[in-house]
């Protein structure tokens, strides 16, 4: 049965992996693409990155950080249940070049989203340095999987409980400078992506950022996901989600992503009242 949850695993507090049966998407997806799900019939549509797939099990894997109503609904589901809706693969695949010195940077749940990109670079014959960030040692995810695809893997934790003490961008600056890398990919919280872009401006590094605006349809129909890239307005769900990190207007993205904050909180509380939250 399509959309059925085959496996569920908690990777870290609030971060859950779901493996879902999706034969068509499994066959067609490429690194950097995403899906939209509605866990339940009454749910919002939310975008999630495709992290992995299995041809044998006809499945795809997603890793979800439960931060709001819909993500909580999703991680509350159990194997055997089916997601109400699952559509994809959406967006353009990530830019994957061969023979590059690549730095892949991610923080938080972005580490999971980074995995397929790092893997694709690796398989394309680029040398991959993965720099991953977590709040603390116990929040590190997919360490083993990343080890299998990165030539170098380094962790940064905010509290210094594992690896470099500090954030990913500080880690980057401690090991690299102009010319160290020819290409890069960054994915994670907006402040981190912005800092990575600022830090590497003028390095001659082609840095791709995978952005995460609020989306609805994911098919280019509503324009809600628009992002300013250089002089142009782009629809992240069809033109992206990957753009040139040095051209993305991250401040605008931050403001647009906050648009519904109070309302989302209201929605979360609202459901708690009737015991669904």
């Amino acid at each position, binding site marked *: 049965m399509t959309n059925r949850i085959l496996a569920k695993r908690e990777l870290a507090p609030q971060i859950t992996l779901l493996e879902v049966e999706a034969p068509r998407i499994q066959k067609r997806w490429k690194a950097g693409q995403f899906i939209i799900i509605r866990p339940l019939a009454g749910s919002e549509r939310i975008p999630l990155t495709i992290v992995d797939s299995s041809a044998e099990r006809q499945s795809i894997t997603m890793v979800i950080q439960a931060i709001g109503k819909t993500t909580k609904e999703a991680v509350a589901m159990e194997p055997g249940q089916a997601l109400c809706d699952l559509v994809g693969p959406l967006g353009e695949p990530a830019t994957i070049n061969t023979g590059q010195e690549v730095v892949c940077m991610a923080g938080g749940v972005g580490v999971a989203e980074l995995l397929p990109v790092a893997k694709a670079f690796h398989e394309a014959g680029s040398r991959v340095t993965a720099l991953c960030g977590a709040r603390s040692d116990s929040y590190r995810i997919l360490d083993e999987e990343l080890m299998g695809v990165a030539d170098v893997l380094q962790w940064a934790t905010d509290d210094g409980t594992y690896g470099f003490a500090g954030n990913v961008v500080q880690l980057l600056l401690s090991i690299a400078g102009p010319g160290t890398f020819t290409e890069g990919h960054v994915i994670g919280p907006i402040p981190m992506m912005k800092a990575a872009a600022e830090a590497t401006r003028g390095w001659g590094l082609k840095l791709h950022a995978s952005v995460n605006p609020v989306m609805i349809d994911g098919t280019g129909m509503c324009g809600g996901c628009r992002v300013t890239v250089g002089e142009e*307005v782009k629809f992240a769900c069809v033109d992206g989600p990957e753009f040139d990190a040095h051209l993305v207007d991250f401040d605008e993205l931050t403001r647009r992503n906050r648009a519904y904050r109070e309302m989302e909180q209201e929605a979360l509380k609202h459901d708690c009242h009737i015991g669904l939250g």
Partner: protein
Amino acid sequence: MAAQPPKYKPNPKAPRQALPLLNAEVRSRTPEEVALGFTPEQVSVEAQRCLQCAKPTCVDACPLHIDIKRFIARLADNDWQGAHDVISEQSPFPGVCGRVCQHELFCEDSCIVAKKWDPVAIGSLERFAADHARLRMKELAGSYPQPTGKKVALVGSGPASLIAAYDLVRLNYQVTVFEALHKLGGVLAYGIPNFRLPREILHEEIARLQNMGVEFVVDFIVGKTATLEELFEEGYEAIFIGTGAGLPYMMGIPGENLVGVYTANEFLTRINLMEAFKFPDSPTPVRVGKHSVIVGGGNSAMDAARWAKRFGSETTILYRRGRAELKARLEEVEHAEEEGVHFEFLSAPVALYGDENGYVREMECIRMELGEPDDSGRRSPVPVKGSEYRIPVDTVVAAIGQAPNPTLQKVTPQLITKRGKIVIDDHGQTSMPLVYAGGDVVRGGSTVILAMKDGRAAAKAMHEALSVEKPEEVEA
């Protein structure tokens, strides 16, 4: 029901019956349907206004060729179900068309009665027949023969595909409709508001196709989830593309990405498809502030404005031409006016200004005057120098038109397009063999009934092509 004589004496002089409406003040606060529909008494009077012409011009003018004369005769005879049966010969969507079809441009425009009096209210009669057949539709559910013929795929579930599905399933084709969104109906589901088209009506008319054996697959984006080539490999022998014109145009003015600035598609999708009017009982919110400005003059603009009004916002439609040039259905313009939507004609936005948090707060507008007629024959608006002025605003909706959805075209370079629109020949066939197209993806923004006309034409062409290919004809 008292038996009526089958023949009546036409009385075209009787005043055209006015469609009863919910009180304007009440309706500007609820998502309930605005038009209530004729009473049986009104149906009787209105049906008897029809002359039962020997050469009913109305039937030719209806792009679906519904036998209007005959269904009106049945209504006049109080045979409401019979009227629905007559309509069903050509269309399974009288509930939809009776509400949103631009009948003033088609059937009613050519009604003979209009030569001397007001035309017969064909649209409202059609709607009545539909509304009174709803219960029986459920009873009929199990009684349709299931198709066994060749497989065909229809892409998109808007009106173009829906009518094609009806025609093809009746010709015994196994029809699959692929829809990108999680709900069926295209613009009927995400664009047109509930207060103009209650969703039960749409769902029930689509359910009838389901009962007839049409398979609907939601969450399936042709070009992404599977390509056209893959569909052919999976055994579909012909494909119709009815993907619509969903790509919104942007205004291209400074401040367009401020919070509170929407395209009509996003605004309407949040409210109609995701039911933001029920938030927080529904999960997707929408921001409607105290002052809403809707830019544009078409159906989308009216719909967005009337929703904004229903959220309690002071609402203005800003249009760069005059009232006479509005492109929306006249009825919708009048309803918007009655509901208290303010119209500001001959004005256009030039910039938007926000506060420190990036929320839109002010719109700068410029006055326009009508200059020389352009290519389309309409007088084009020209900005009046130095006439800029600012208005406070916290919600802006750009309803300035849409281009064809590009997803499928982007991954199918063999499909020839012209400015984004898929190019077809006289039979609705695209540049790819056995791939047909119609509706908004071919016409750009158009109307429900013209999309249906295209879907019907394509279904016919598909049937002809598939019947010729192999000699054993598919039986109707």
